[in-house]
């Protein structure tokens, strides 16, 4: 029976267990539900959980352990000549056995009897069914494959029997336990709690996992490039090895990338913060509830646009526009029509990224401002303050920590942004103060270093992980600081 079918069968036992359990609980209550410790629904859920969880856990454990055990058994049956070869060689042979077994499964049991037992002859037969094998097989592998198939079938049979029996026993046992005083509710709640904890630990564990994988790869990078050269180098020139220059290592200076990242993020924040804040103030204080209901979702639509779309908006519209305007200004001022803003520049990327960030600033700030207790607002208005005085002197100061938190979150988004920069500011790693020239950011270079046909052995590719670590620490720092401020804010009115 296939795994999916076993799963459905167990689920079916569980669901019928639920209804039986519920009915039984109603039955033992004698019609007076208030006598029960837990409502019938809980008794049903109790039976359902007993019918499914042990069985599914068993299923999972078996599926993880079985292939190793089976293959080990098959491997001990390999002829002595094979057993004397290296571990790697045996692994390769086992792989061949596995694909042979997979191929043989395409034939019915009767057909298998008619198949030849010689590798060179069985290959074409399998080919007829669309299965392609490697050419380095040996005859003993065919026997091994049959052994494997037999073991797999046996394993699957017992798996089916045990999983379903477990489910059934669980259901029956749980049903037999149902009584007036059974604390089904507490047990069900405990299981739900365990599920919730598992869900939240997955988020934490994956963060740790991502971090550890970066640490390992960065370590390999720093083995070939000294950390000081990376952190304080001012030249980014990761030459890839080429035919005429096979030993090229290049220079991996972080500074131009970091400068570009911070510069572009800064321009973006200069655009996004005032506009976003004013929009938030308008929505929180001045807009009627009808206007607010229309404007706020519209503004939030901006946040839903994929950043690559902003990127080509920058590339085909904003960049050329800025270039042409600057050419005209230059023409009027000096008579020389050379544009001083390049189409791809820090300014273009900053402007467009700023527009992208407006909804983040406005939406988060609006939430923070409206969270300030209404009594503050009324207190101020009741003293004869105007709406703008109330906003500037009471609401904004009260909301300030929350707004700062919102800005820091927005800032870490600006630092992590990639697609807009690629299209709007280019990929040239340059160190300049002129916002009208192209620069590039850490994220862009990560993409740059990791695209193409690469192996993760040279510093040219491994540097991506070091860059990733740098970004990770910058955004982590910003986020932790934002959380700290937001938490401080929570205590304000208590």
């Amino acid at each position, binding site marked *: 029976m296939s795994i999916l079918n076993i799963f459905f069968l167990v689920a079916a036992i569980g669901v019928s267990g639920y209804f039986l359990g519920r009915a039984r609980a109603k039955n033992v209550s004698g019609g007076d539900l208030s006598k029960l410790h837990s409502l019938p629904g809980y008794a049903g859920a109790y039976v359902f959980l007993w019918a499914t969880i042990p069985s599914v856990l068993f299923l999972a454990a078996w599926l993880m352990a079985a292939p190793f055990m089976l293959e080990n058994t098959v491997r001990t049956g390999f002829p002595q000549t094979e057993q004397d070869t290296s571990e790697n060689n045996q692994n390769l042979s086992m792989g061949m056995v596995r694909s042979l077994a997979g191929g043989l499964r395409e034939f019915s049991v009767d057909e298998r009897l008619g198949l030849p037992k010689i590798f060179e002859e069985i290959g074409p037969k399998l080919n007829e069914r669309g299965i392609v094998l490697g050419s380095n097989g040996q005859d003993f592998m065919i026997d091994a494959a049959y052994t494997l198939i037999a073991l797999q079938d046996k394993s699957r049979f017992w798996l089916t029997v045990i999983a379903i029996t477990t489910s059934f026993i669980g259901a029956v046992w749980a049903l037999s336990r149902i009584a007036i005083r059974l604390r089904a509710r507490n047990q069900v709640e405990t299981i739900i709690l365990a599920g919730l904890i598992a869900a939240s630990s997955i988020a934490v564990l994956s963060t740790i996992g991502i971090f550890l994988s970066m640490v390992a790869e960065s370590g390999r990078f720093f083995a070939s490039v000294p950390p000081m050269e990376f952190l304080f180098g001012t030249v980014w020139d990761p030459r890839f090895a080429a035919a005429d220059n096979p030993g090229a290592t290049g220079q991996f200076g972080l500074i131009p990338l970091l400068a570009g990242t911070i510069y572009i993020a800064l321009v973006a924040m200069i655009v996004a913060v005032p506009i976003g804040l004013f929009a938030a103030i308008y929505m929180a204080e001045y807009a009627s509830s009808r206007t607010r209901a229309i404007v706020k979702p519209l503004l939030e639509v901006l946040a839903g646009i994929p950043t690559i779309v902003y990127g080509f908006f920058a590339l085909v519209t904003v960049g050329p526009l800025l270039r042409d305007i600057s050419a005209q200004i230059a023409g009027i001022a000096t008579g020389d029509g050379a544009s001083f803003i390049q189409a791809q520049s820090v300014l273009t990327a900053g402007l467009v990224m700023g527009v992208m960030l407006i909804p983040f600033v406005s939406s988060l700030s609006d939430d923070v401002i409206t969270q300030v207790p209404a*009594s503050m607002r009324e207190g101020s208005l*009741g003293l*004869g303050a105007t709406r703008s005085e109330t906003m500037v002197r009471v609401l904004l100061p009260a909301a300030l920590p929350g707004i700062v938190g919102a800005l820091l979150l927005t800032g870490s988004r600006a630092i992590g942004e990639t697609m807009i920069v690629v299209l709007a500011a280019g990929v040239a790693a340059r160190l300049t103060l002129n916002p009208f020239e192209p620069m590039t950011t850490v994220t862009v270079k990560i993409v740059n270093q990791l695209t193409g046909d690469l192996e993760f052995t040279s510093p040219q590719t491994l540097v991506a992980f070091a860059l990733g670590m740098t970004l990770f620490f910058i955004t982590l720092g910003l986020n932790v600081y934002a959380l700290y401020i937001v938490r401080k804010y929570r205590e304000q009115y208590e």
Partner: protein
Amino acid sequence: MQMNTKFKPLENVPLNADPSPRAISICAEKVNVFYGEKQALFDIDLNVGANEVTSLIGPSGCGKSTFLRCMNRMNDTIDTCRVSGKITLDGEDIYSRDIDVVELRARVGMVFQKPNPFPKSIFENVAYGPRIHGLAHTKTDLERIVVTSLQKAGLFEEVKDRLQQPGTSLSGGQQQRLCIARAIAVQPEVILMDEPCSALDPIATAIVEELIDELRQNYTIVIVTHSMQQAARVSQQTAFFHLGNLVETGPTEKIFTTPDDPRTESYITGRIG
């Protein structure tokens, strides 16, 4: 913190150092209030006398708070609220087009049910109103206003050493007196109080009630209260609201001893409410 030393010499400022503006009367005629389609008040006619404490009593939802908030147009901040009729402050219609609502609220101060000090220092809380209305020309002026307001609210002695601490660090009763000081600092003519003692313990309540009685000398006070004892203790006039109607109004003593309307009697004896 440096404020502490500065204020020490000012402790002896007399209670009524600055001449408070004269108190004035309020007159309401045929006031109707609607929240959307729902009518909350029906044809309210009420006179509030100068230098008197008028208490508005009645069961929850009877419209007494709504009426109170009509008198400084705080209901304007609610989108769906509509007020008709006429309310005059010293003969001037506060709903007329010539009235600047900001100016009105400076003349008619308000103290809310829950103490709502701003998350600023005690000093800044009281200085807030004078600052926005430009009542103080110098720093000394401002300090004088803050000190006298705190004195009038009976809070100065308790907080004089910690004027720079946040207003939210005070106890509930102190916070409410801080809010009263904040309202007084704007030098209003009328003070509206919306259940000012409902969040306070009996001791703090007694202090605030005593304060209300003192403030009567200089201000016209309207107070909404759920406590009939409080109404009896602090007010000279009482108005009884029921289901959006003004049932009866008159001297407090009369309302509580020989009310004309049977509904009033039922309420004060605890049979409806």
